[in-house]
Structure formats: structure tokens, C-alpha cells
């Protein structure tokens, strides 16, 4: 028999604790908490453009996009809930030809440069990985800037390769 809390039902389904009408469950006999609406995305930029210095970084192909938080037209992740989000970009940087290039790789929140990294390559096709957990308020949006404003920008030609070879991930941690 469910517990009614001001119209909100906490009940059990197949021995799992169910929250309201959602599919979020606590499954004590097996795994813990199942959170199938966990806001998350995993995707890549695959447009093949040769413009390496770019903002926003156009992650146009998403393998996972739970809650449709990532937009493949604005290239932004909009937080549906206040919380802590893991944010990761890993991809080839440089300009595709010069062995030594430099550039800034920034995390942009609500249009403002937040955290940034920098890399001075010594050969073509080097990998850059930028990962950090960031607290967002519901409605905040996040994107990546590759050596271009509003992120840090330099006159050097470094940027991010845009034909696969990159992995972009965001998910709600807690």
C-alpha cells in the first residue's frame, strides 16, 4: 500500500521503492538506485569542418542525450536540475598541420568563461583532456570554446579537430 505524502505516492513495484509517477527506483536486492532520467549526454563533433578555433564547439552527434539536455543546434547543455555535473572533453587539438600550436580550451557557463586549460603541442594530432565537476543551477547552460571568445583566446592557431576523434560527456553526479 503506497504512502501518500500530499498527493505524492511512495510505493513499491516488484519489490522496488518507486517515487511518484517516475521510473526512479530504489532496488534494495540488487543495485541500489536506478535513475533512468539521469541528465546526461555523450557525443562528438563530426561535422568535418577545418575551422579548428570555434565557439561553441559543435557537438552535432550524440549517442546519449537523456532528457534532451544537449542541443545539436545551439551546442549547449542546459541543466534541468540544480546539482553537480561531471564535464569532460577529450579530443585532438592543434590546427591539423603545424607541429607546434597552442590554444586555450575553455568551459563556458551562461556565456561566461569558467575554467580553462591550455596546451602547447609539439607534434600534430595531440590529445587534450579537460575534465572537472561543476555545480550548476537549473537553467544554467554549458558549452565548450576552443581558443576563441568568450573563452580564453590566443593568436596561435590551436583549436579542436572536428571529424570524430573527440568524446564529450556531461552527466549529473548528485
Amino acid at each position, binding site marked *: 500500500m503506497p*504512502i501518500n*505524502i*500530499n*498527493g*505524492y505516492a*511512495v510505493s513499491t513495484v516488484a519489490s522496488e521503492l518507486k*517515487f*511518484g509517477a*517516475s*521510473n*526512479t527506483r530504489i532496488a534494495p536486492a540488487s543495485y*541500489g*538506485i536506478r*535513475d*533512468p*532520467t*539521469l*541528465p546526461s549526454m555523450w557525443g562528438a563533433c563530426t561535422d568535418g569542418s577545418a575551422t579548428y578555433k570555434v565557439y561553441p564547439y559543435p557537438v552535432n552527434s550524440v549517442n546519449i542525450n537523456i*532528457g534532451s539536455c544537449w542541443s545539436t543546434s545551439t551546442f549547449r547543455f542546459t541543466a*534541468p*536540475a*540544480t*546539482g*553537480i555535473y*561531471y564535464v*569532460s572533453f577529450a579530443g585532438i587539438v592543434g590546427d591539423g598541420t603545424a607541429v*607546434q600550436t*597552442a590554444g586555450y580550451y575553455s568551459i563556458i557557463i551562461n556565456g561566461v568563461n569558467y*575554467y*580553462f*586549460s*591550455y*596546451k*602547447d*603541442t*609539439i607534434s600534430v594530432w595531440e590529445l*587534450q*583532456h*579537460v*575534465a*572537472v*565537476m*561543476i*555545480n550548476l543551477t537549473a537553467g544554467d547552460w554549458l558549452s565548450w570554446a576552443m581558443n576563441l571568445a568568450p573563452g*580564453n583566446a590566443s593568436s596561435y592557431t590551436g583549436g579542436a579537430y572536428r571529424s570524430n576523434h573527440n568524446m564529450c560527456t556531461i552527466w*549529473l*553526479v*548528485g
Partner: protein
Amino acid sequence: MGFDVGGVTLTSPGTTLSMDSGATNWMKVDANGILTRPQTPFMRGQLTGRGSPYSAIPLLVTADVNVGGCWNNTTGTWTCPVAGYYMVTGGNIMGSASSYGYFYIQKNGTDVIFTHWNHNASWHYVTMSGIIQCAAGDTLRYVIKGQSPASAGAYGVGGHCMYSIALMA
């Protein structure tokens, strides 16, 4: 009116569920089923005002956000408030010219995981992520060591480096 379970109260306006104790919102399930834990122990921070290259043991990261007060800026130490699995991320830009070395996460002063760089120029970015099982009271910290030249280290002046720790489960 909430449902009291031994002092822990389940409350709802009808579309969300919150688990509270007093004014503390421990857990929330919103109308879409998204589960958040607003009190999750969490820090994110940077190196700032530490000079360059910087490799003091441990790295004295300055927290920009420090939920639960687990991170100590003065000692460069995270103290786990509860047993669990903690995600740790770190990213440094190495400011010395050609150099190599190791970037560690230590638990209770002992190496747990590390990554390695070996680069023929300055400004090489070195990152690491891991999930570490900890007991309540265990400490975590970031360490750069084993580098050559001995002066090699991170750019500690400001920006460029980023660090975060959070309780995952």
C-alpha cells in the same frame, strides 16, 4: 504535512519528493524523476597565487566551491565525511620547459593512482580522473613528484588548472 521516519521527514508539494531533516534537503526526486543530493560533499578549485612552476607536496588548491567544508585550502587535503566512493579529477598545465614527471592522487598520504607526462616543450596539460573507495576520515590530496628537472611543476599563478572531488555513492 510530511511523513516522519524516525526524524527524517519525507515531504512533497505533490510533484516532487524531498527527504529532509530540519531545513536540510538531503535528497530530492523531481517531477521528472531526476534524483539530486543537494548536500553531496563536493569541491572544485584551482591553483592561484602559488607561483610557477609549482610542485609543493601536496598541491595547495584553492577551493571555489566547498560543500560540506571537506577541502582544506591550507593543508591541501580533502577529508571524507562518510564512507563511500569519491570521484576525483585533476588537471594541471606543466609550466617548465621540457620535462617529465608524475601526477598522483594520494589517500592517507599513500599513492593510489597516478598519471605520467613526458613532454619536449613547456605547457603540457596533464589530467587524471578516478573513483576511490574511502572510509570516513580518510584523506585525499593531489601530488606532483618524480619530476625532471626537479623544478618542473604546474602553473600555479591562476587559471589553467582545475580540480574537483565529489561523493558518488
